[in-house]
């Protein structure tokens, strides 16, 4: 539809404009902007537009990234962070989905738990880390918990939204066919909520990555968040940006991967949505 409007609006005598319009709709245009900004970064450092010890040219950051990945100075902490993130993400997601399904289907729970969730949801994680050290220590347990805590709420809220939006007819039909409550939950409620759950899972994915890095920066002695601070305090800004670059690329990759997976698993919904 958008394409049709674009074609209608473009003057027929200007094929160039149509070509530009086509390019603008591809992912290449997004990469062009990224490339332009990185070029600006490089020039701003090379030509002294920004004068700071903490502003190395992007080319040096790329070299530091390659070196760090090859030597393991960057790939090791990155792998450690991703492992923590994955553990926290899985735990938080499972809890979020399970709680969302339960609260959404059991009215009493909704009234009982929702105020607690609403009170916990806005808590800033960096403020939670120091008191949590008391109970969880300084190691992986703390970071995994913090990530799971960050993940659980968006997943829970989107699951709850999905459950509440289910067409009542679907549930009644299942009941009419004699399906038990558990079977209805597994065979009707869960699949029908999946598009909404999936949206929550996708939001939480980048949140999990950010939270892992923040937790490692506050109370870390390993991982990519710790590497960023270590490079900062070790006066190695190119290594610090190398770590930031890795996080950015990993975040982008995770998001793209999730979208692909979502398209494959929920194609019934996408097709349905398209029509």
């Amino acid at each position, binding site marked *: 539809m958008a394409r049709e409007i674009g074609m209608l609006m473009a003057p027929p005598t200007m094929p160039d404009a149509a070509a530009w319009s086509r390019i603008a709709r591809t992912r290449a245009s997004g990469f062009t902007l990224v490339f332009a900004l990185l070029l600006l970064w490089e020039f701003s450092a090379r030509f002294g537009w920004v004068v700071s*010890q903490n502003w190395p040219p992007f080319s040096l950051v790329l070299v530091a990234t390659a070196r760090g990945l090859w030597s393991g100075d960057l790939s090791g902490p990155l792998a450690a962070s991703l492992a923590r993130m994955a553990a926290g993400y899985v735990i938080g997601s499972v809890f979020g989905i399970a709680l969302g399904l339960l609260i959404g289907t059991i009215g009493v729970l909704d009234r009982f738990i929702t105020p607690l969730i609403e009170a916990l949801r806005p808590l800033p994680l960096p403020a939670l*880390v120091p008191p949590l*050290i008391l109970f969880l*220590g300084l190691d992986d347990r703390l970071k995994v918990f913090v990530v799971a805590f960050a993940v659980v709420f968006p997943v829970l809220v989107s699951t709850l939204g999905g459950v509440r939006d289910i067409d009542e007819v679907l549930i009644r039909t299942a009941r009419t066919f004699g399906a038990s409550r558990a079977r209805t939950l597994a065979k009707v409620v869960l699949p029908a909520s999946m598009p909404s759950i999936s949206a929550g899972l996708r939001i939480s994915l980048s949140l999990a990555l950010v939270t892992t890095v923040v937790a490692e920066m506050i109370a870390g*002695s390993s991982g990519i968040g710790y590497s960023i601070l*270590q490079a*900062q*305090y*070790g*006066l190695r800004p190119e290594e610090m940006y190398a770590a930031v670059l890795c996080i950015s690329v990993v975040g982008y990759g995770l998001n793209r991967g999730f979208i692909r997976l979502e398209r494959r698993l929920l194609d019934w919904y996408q097709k349905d949505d398209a029509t």
Partner: protein
Amino acid sequence: MIDCRLRNSSGLRFLLIPACIFLLQQPAAADDPIRLRVSTISSIDTAPLEAAKAQGYFADEGLSVDTTPMVGGAVGLPALAAGQVQIANSNLVSIILGARQGLDFTIVAAGDSTRDAPPDLAGLVVASDSAIKTAQDLQGKKIGVNTRNNIIWLFARGWLAKEGVDPAKAIYREVPFPQMVDGVGNGQLDAAFVVEPFLSLGLKSGTVKLLAWPYSAVQKRIPISMFAASKSYADAHPDHILRFVRAYNRGVDWVDQNEGTAAFFALIADYTHLSIDKVRELVPPLFPKTIDPAQVGLVIDLMRAQGILDGPFDPASVRYSTVIVPP
């Protein structure tokens, strides 16, 4: 019935197998090194600890010291209070504030102190083209400190007071050390109390110039950072503390003997991740083995004058026997 027995036996197996593995993995207790977890910071202040580790002095004492380096966060003392680490490196002001709040901190090893004369480990800088020349010019101006209510903040205020300026007339902004020089350079801060190595680097780059050495202007030989344990742990395991401090003090001797040598620079560069060239520019602090209660008293007086401590506080109460008579 059979089903039930099978279920029971598999349950038992699940319990027994890990238990056996656990028991088999336990070496003879007599040979076990004592594990100590120490929260530390990756700066030159902890050179003797790293030297003791690298030279095997802790191993000689039958200790296995697991250091948890913290770069930016102030979580060493919370971790100590929670019993997650047995010993934590922190600054004197934070330790006193913790002790005042009822946390049973005791200083077991002396850490480092400033010298008698500048250059100090930290200096107050302003932009190289700044019109600020004296403490009086800082009234109403923004001063960068890394954290409020810590030693940097305290001595920035103490210096202003000594120069006859009301410290409350300046605005204190919390900025991490690595960003301070940039903050002053781009005008977001009017001054900053910067520690090494950021101080020398900023001065060398020409972005900032030195205004004062607040540490030595206010007090000589200030105990800056030190190693604290909880009194309950120290009372329950006096032998662990004794072994730790003995090995740490050998680290102090090593640093004193090797300061300025290639081995010393290599050690610092290794754990701080600074380049050797930058390590060479650092002026190491003093590494005393005892804590002078008179010096602690002066810091306490300053804390009182700046309104972060009230009521009686005995400077000797935070000293453990190992910093009175070094083992």
